[in-house]
């Protein structure tokens, strides 16, 4: 990886854009095998003091690096724009290499309401724009929404799930939303779908009596989204869940001919996300999936009480990979997130 850098204090968007064009031109002139990636713009709005940490997270997304990343670092009392533009490229393979551009702009709070006029000229036109504002900055988000195609959020974390889901729902009215909390449920959704795909097992979906989800302490939203997904897909309805002291949530959903007991339980695990799921059916059949080294540990109990245990293979993507997956998902569309989100909102305790 090699790079060219431009920087300027007290600069403006025109100068930044011009600098990017020059950097790209120079780099291509020096090596015609290099072409700019043209997939996705990523705009990130962060607190200045956390800029380094966010930049490190973005570096770890590997091949899911956006074509042009614009990192807006907000610093109290700042009134001018300072910018650094970088064009880097991978080593050409088969006579061909891809260039990526990164712009870091230091700005003040007063720039946020007019952020669109700063960011828009710096974006590559004709490709989608993904916006991520991990430290809040709602004013910046409002300013940028008209030029945003996809909003990256994480409903897991510091906000109460009800608040995070409400925000995601609002954003969904204006842009497609990629929710990292939803992506943490993907392997579980895939495995549950596969587990009930056998013709003999499919009817059991209509006879689910219990759903227990084990999740890391800050990943209640992921757990609720998984329940929300099953609720929306299987037409379960019901009242909000109730808090179980500090250990989780419990409640019930109504299905066409019965009730499903729901439990969300916190587990001690390092990585955010889910740790396990148990589905039980009225006839006594139960299926548990739990995180294990090299995949998931599956345990099935048949109606006669016979138990089978086996391993389902799959390397953990790890929390480091979840941001890259979020960037990748910005180019896809999952029609089941919205209904799952709405169902999850209905599950949140008052």
């Amino acid at each position, binding site marked *: 990886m090699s790079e060219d850098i431009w920087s300027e204090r007290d600069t403006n968007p025109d100068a930044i854009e011009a600098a990017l064009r020059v950097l790209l031109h120079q780099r291509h002139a020096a090596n015609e095998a290099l072409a700019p990636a043209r*997939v996705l713009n990523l705009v990130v709005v962060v607190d200045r003091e956390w800029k380094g940490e966010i930049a490190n997270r973005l570096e770890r997304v590997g091949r899911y690096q956006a074509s042009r990343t614009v990192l807006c670092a907000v610093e109290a009392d700042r009134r001018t724009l300072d910018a650094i533009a970088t064009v880097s490229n991978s080593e050409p393979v088969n006579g061909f290499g891809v260039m990526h551009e990164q712009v870091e702009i230091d700005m003040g709070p007063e720039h946020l309401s007019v952020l669109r006029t700063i960011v828009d000229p710096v974006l590559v036109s004709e490709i989608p724009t993904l916006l991520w504002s991990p430290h809040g900055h709602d004013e910046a988000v409002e300013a940028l929404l008209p030029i945003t195609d996809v909003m990256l959020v994480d409903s897991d974390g510091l906000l109460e799930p009800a608040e995070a889901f409400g925000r995601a729902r609002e954003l969904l009215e204006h842009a497609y939303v990629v929710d990292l909390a939803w992506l943490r449920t993907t392997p579980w959704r895939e*495995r549950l779908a596969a587990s009930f795909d056998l013709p003999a097992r499919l009817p059991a979906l209509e006879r689910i009596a219990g759903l227990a989800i084990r999740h890391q302490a800050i990943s209640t939203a992921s757990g609720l989204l998984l329940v929300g997904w099953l609720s929306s897909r299987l037409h379960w309805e019901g009242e909000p869940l109730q808090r179980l002291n500090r250990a989780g949530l419990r409640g019930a959903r109504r299905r066409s001919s019965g009730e499903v007991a729901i439990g969300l339980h916190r587990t001690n695990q390092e990585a955010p996300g889910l740790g396990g799921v148990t589905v039980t059916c009225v006839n006594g059949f139960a299926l548990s999936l739990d995180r294990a080294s090299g995949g998931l540990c599956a345990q099935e109990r048949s109606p006669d009480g016979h138990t*089978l245990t086996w391993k389902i293979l799959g390397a953990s993507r790890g929390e480091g990979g979840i941001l890259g997956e979020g*960037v990748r998902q910005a180019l896809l569309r999952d029609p*089941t997130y919205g209904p799952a989100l709405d169902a999850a909102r209905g599950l949140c305790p008052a």
Partner: protein
Amino acid sequence: MSATPVAAAPESGNPLVEGLERLPVRPTSLVVFGATGDLAHRKLLPALYNLAHDGALPERFELIAVARRDQGHDDFRAVARESIERFSRRVPDPATLEGLLNDMRYVQGTFDDDRVYTELERTLGEFDEQAGYQLNRTFYLSTSPEFFPVIAGKLGAAGLNRAATAEVRIVIEKPFGYDLASARQLNCEVLGVFDESQVFRIDHYLGKETVQNLMALRFANALFEPVWNRNYIDQIQITAAEDIGIGGRAGYYERAGALRDLVQNHMLQLLALLAMEPPTAFEANRLRDEKLKVLEAIVPPTTDHVSAMTVRAQYGPGVVGGVAVPGYREEPGVASNSRTETFAALRLEVSNWRWAGVPFYLRTGKQLARKVTEIAVILKPVPHIALQSSGSVGIQANQIVLTVQPDEGVSVSLGAKIPGARMRIRPVNMEYRYGTAFMSESPEAYERLILDAMRGDATLFTRNDEIEALWGIIDPILSAWQHDTTSTIPQYAAGSSGPSEANGLLDGGRKWRRL
């Protein structure tokens, strides 16, 4: 913002499938015959690991390796580990790799030995018992082609071609037949044991992303389809050039030759996808129906016309990449008077309303100047060049070039004005490279195809009538070449663009694209 259609409606009626990128694959026991061979070593085992790594294998997945080599389970696991560590596109995760290796079983024996099938039946039954239900069964024949009918027959005799409550499928590697008669015979033998819906004939080119993208390019863009016909297209050139020789495959290659090795399968499949009518749905039989119509519209050359429509040649000594290399007849294991072609070029026509009169030129060869597989759609020149008086030299017909390998992408050549006071035109290229437009790494073709076979999706596999249509085009050429034992086989220097005789196939001032 409009929603994009997602995965096809689940045939199973499973409401949990909607929106998932990865469709479920039902629990499966995969039996690989020829599991110690080169294909398994380089492609199949690494592909299986990558699927395991991605969590794409079924929730219950059992692998049984069958081969002649006298060794035990652990010996095979060691071989499999080495294959995966060496050829997997992902760095293996130790726990996932162990999980995959630990469950592998090895059955030793020759493919005609009844004891192999007894042992298979026992092991498969053991897996079913562990699961508490019958797992689907997929038999993957990665052996020499002479064993295909043997294995199919033995599976049938052992009753392994059917299962009471599970799907049974058989995947057959290429080459499927040696000529039309042997392909028909093989179809007959395989279909005497399995239904067509159970048979998955692999052409791994169809698993390549670019080949599938050919359909996306044609049918997802209004830009191209209006000109995709005889009114606008002057010629099509399909090239599959290799810059290496036969390596250690003399035994296979002497019997196969370039026509069987690449034209009969990969290149004619590319032609069919390029020329077919839009299928009403991306579904196995509808797609294959359309491909078949194209193949049936290709009039095979009569014996008299073979020499006018085809060229065969062999590479002679030459220099490749600065290194002197021997000619084909000097390669170890090749007869000094061998008449096997290492280069083949054809001119074909698709006799239907869309393509009548458009020549399709195909060429393939070994030890050529460059490794490239591409499809070039060359349009007719504009009818009137008003700019000529201003010295517009360099105006060329537009070309749409789809590169399959090594750099997957699409390039469209356009005429553009050279900056300056005069109206001078020269061609420029509009390039679309996968690396610049997609973040995801393309999966290996075998990963996609193994998964599709286990799911029972035959869209990217070749049907029995397609196979026979493919051989029907090639058979007269093979026959004419076989009967011609006296004419001189043209030689081309290794490292060159091929024999000059190939230029004679192109008329009307047309030329082969530069390699």
